[in-house]
């Protein structure tokens, strides 16, 4: 076994070797097959933004690091694949950000979207660190661009990844690889050996075999359980069978389950998930951004019985975006149909699937397999209730219905100009809220309130600490990058402390 490098914050590895070919003095080389039989300082479970930030931070602080990603290489990174921006506080405009976004404003936004369900201490820490992370993440090769077309409202607060989340991941992996971080794909952690809050080893299944992998520190950054339908059923019952999962099938929550079973303190509502209404024709998994629909405001939404069930004009994006998944989940068969007429067709972002189209409401109902009379009656009742107003979908305008239940309180226009269009929608699950409690070091907190000896968590698996409910665009990536970096640094620092203590004792 090669000699270990002296681990000392004052004596980090020679980062000047970045980009050059070769091997690190501690025996980590890149390009070669990862060795699962050797012992690593830090084991990172997961392969997304949080995991890579943790791995890079720990590696830069002198630790040897192994990353275990359950997915194949193409699907690496879980939900990070589908992201496009992160929300970081900044004091002034930059090349890609149109204006300042103060820590205070960020905190206010967080309070608003979570309804106060956040750990203020951790939230303020995250926001303060996000400033530095904006530069740090770029130093790891991630590139930004001005806000994407159709998302101009986020141009001041959110930094958009040039090329999207997969481009961001590619950059992080290249940096990790150059630093000598060992990465293994299709390596699922199926068992954790934990004794009294002390991680000893993980059981890893890869290429049909199981390996016992020991490490001094454990960082779990492997997401939630949104792809685990059976687990979702615990909160949603059989309705979960009809949910579509927006990310990869690999976010099954296996490690989260094992941690909770090992006595780590849970945080976040175990039944809740972030659900948006997406095109019902989307594949079961990994449909990503392109199956989302944001046209609820332009028409009415009916259920399987052809009946409206909620005020389509309640609020502007993005709030309305996040409530419709839940609303559709509560309807029979977990399906609904957004119905609108010809003038609205070009007023929103195009999506993957074309709308279902017919020349009359009756014919549309037939195509949708709805009761034609019920849909005709619903549309007629709605049209009769629409009051005159000036339509403007960018503000809460004065177009509303009167004497209708439920009402449409804004953007109500008669559905009268053929051809008529409809999009079938189902709940699309983005992420889950249940996670493990952590402290300011991203160190796991045990059920009895003590700190775990050597276990840290970052990203979605601990997002519930700061995001008790709701969502704000880009905040998942902030949680991942900030707590990933904190976890990586903290794990390396803990390693230094122990080694130095042992040396002093000897």
């Amino acid at each position, binding site marked *: 076994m090669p000699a270990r490098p002296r681990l000392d914050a004052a004596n980090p590895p020679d980062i000047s070797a970045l980009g050059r070919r070769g091997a690190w003095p501690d025996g980590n080389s890149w390009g070669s097959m990862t060795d699962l039989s050797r012992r690593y300082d830090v084991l990172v479970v997961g392969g997304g933004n949080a995991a890579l930030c943790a791995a890079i931070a720990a590696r830069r602080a002198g630790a040897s690091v192994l990353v275990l990603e359950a997915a194949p290489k193409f699907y690496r990174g879980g939900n990070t694949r589908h992201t496009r921006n992160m929300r970081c506080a900044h004091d002034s405009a930059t090349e890609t950000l149109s204006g300042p976004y103060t820590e205070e404003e960020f905190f206010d936004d967080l309070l608003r979207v979570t309804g106060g369900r956040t750990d203020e201490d951790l939230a303020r820490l995250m926001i303060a660190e996000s400033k530095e992370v904006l530069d740090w993440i770029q130093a790891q090769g991630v590139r930004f*661009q001005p806000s994407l077309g159709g998302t101009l409202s986020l141009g001041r607060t959110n930094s958009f990844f040039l*090329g999207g989340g997969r481009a961001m991941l*590619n950059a992080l992996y290249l940096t990790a690889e150059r630093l000598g971080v060992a990465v293994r794909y299709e390596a699922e952690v199926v068992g954790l050996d934990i004794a009294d809050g002390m991680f000893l080893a993980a059981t890893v299944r890869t290429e049909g075999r199981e390996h016992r992998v020991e490490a001094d520190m454990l960082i779990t950054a492997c997401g939630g359980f949104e792809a685990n339908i059976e687990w979702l059923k615990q909160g949603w019952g059989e309705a979960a069978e009809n949910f579509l999962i927006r990310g990869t099938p690999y976010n099954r929550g296996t490690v989260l389950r094992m941690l909770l079973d090992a006595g780590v303190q849970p945080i976040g509502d175990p039944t809740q998930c972030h659900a948006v209404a997406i095109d019902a024709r989307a594949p079961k998994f990994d449909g*990503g*951004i392109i199956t989302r629909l944001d046209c609820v405001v332009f028409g009415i939404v009916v259920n399987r019985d052809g009946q409206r069930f909620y005020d389509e004009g309640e609020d502007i994006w993005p709030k309305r975006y996040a409530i419709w998944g839940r609303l559709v989940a509560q309807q029979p068969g977990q399906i609904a149909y957004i119905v609108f007429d010809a003038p609205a067709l070009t007023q929103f972002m*195009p999506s993957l699937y074309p709308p279902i189209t017919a020349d009359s409401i009756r014919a549309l109902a037939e195509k949708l397999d709805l009761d034609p009379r019920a849909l005709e009656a619903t549309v007629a009742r709605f049209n009769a209730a629409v009051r005159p107003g000036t339509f403007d979908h960018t503000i809460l305008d004065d177009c509303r219905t009167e004497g209708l239940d439920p009402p449409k309180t804004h953007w109500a226009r008669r559905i009268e100009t053929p051809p008529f269009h409809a999009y079938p929608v189902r709940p699309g699950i983005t992420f889950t809220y249940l996670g493990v409690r952590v402290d300011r070091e991203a160190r796991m907190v045990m059920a009895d309130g003590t700190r775990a000896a050597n276990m840290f968590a970052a990203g979605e698996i601990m997002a519930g600490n700061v995001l008790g409910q709701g969502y704000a665009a880009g905040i998942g990536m902030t949680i991942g990058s900030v707590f990933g970096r904190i976890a990586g640094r903290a794990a390396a620092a803990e390693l230094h402390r122990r080694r130095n203590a042992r040396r002093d004792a000897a």
Partner: protein
Amino acid sequence: MTLHTPPGHASAPLAEADRLMTVCNSCRYCEGLCAVFPAMEMRRSFADGDLNYLANLCHACGACYVDCQFAPPHAFQVNVPQTLAAVRADSYRRYAWPAALAPIFDRNGLWIALIAALAVAAFIAGFVAWNDAAVLFGTHTGPGAFYRLMPHDAMVAVFGAAFLYAILALAMGLRAFWRDIGEPAATLAEPASLWQAVKDAATLRNLDGGGVGCYGADERPTDNRRLYHHFTFYGFLLCFAATSVATLHHYGLGRIAPYPWWDLPVVLGTVGGIGLLIGPAGLLAAKWTRDPALRDDARFGMDAAFLAMLFLTSLTGLLLLMLRATPAMGMLLALHLGVVFAFFLTMPYGRFVHGLYRFAALVRYAKERRQMAEAPAGSA
């Protein structure tokens, strides 16, 4: 899966490009990478002309494939560079003038090799037929050395005709492209759009993967195609400049070729010629090692033939320069002239046209982008 079914398109690659643009237009993560995606966002539906425009705007850097969360093996099977490469190559055939010669694009490598071989053979045969063996294999130096083997006026007549024909055929192709994409002719005369396109083309701004470089063998942006293309393009320009200066020397100053090594035409031609050796060789090597997912292998012959012609034009020219004072000059001159003649003739029927259509697409894009910037916000 019931993906968006494209309406009638002229070919399978066009139908696939339509499907992809619909996917991409509902994602838009790649809009910062190059000109293709912003141009796409200005449209909601994609007719053949739109797709041919986008395909010729694409510089094939590969970044959007490497960055795409829906690339194969994902069920959505999004591979924009490869699909647009196929559409682009088909568009060359579609715009060929006269249309009867369009089939040259089908087996382009073979055709160009044949034409080149025939042209070289014709020049050698001509040199042999018109010249005494003593002259053909003699040593000639001083002004007019070349013209003892082929009279200057004959050279001007043959190459002038070939060049003018190429210009005519290229212009007709450009006209067909411009009509197909539905852009008014006046756009090609807008100074602001032209200047922007010149800058974009001169720097290959759209071949840098949005800043890191373009992609070759894998997800590492280490490809040097932009550098090699610069060698090729500027080498070609220098060679063209050498010929132009020589023409001025001849008619303006009455100075007759061959010129001494320090004279401007020779210096320009030598430097350009070296570029035309390094560039095409590098581009060909890059093509070979590129990730097959990014290649349009069906058109390998077309690309290789064009690169080979550039390389041979330069190689024969440099050899002629080096050996012009030896008895080998006669045959080398025939060889060089044969290759250059074939190059002129095949310009409108090979990969050369990419520069023309791509530049024209950049002109249109410059105009569209300016219009977008001037339009009031939210009116898109």
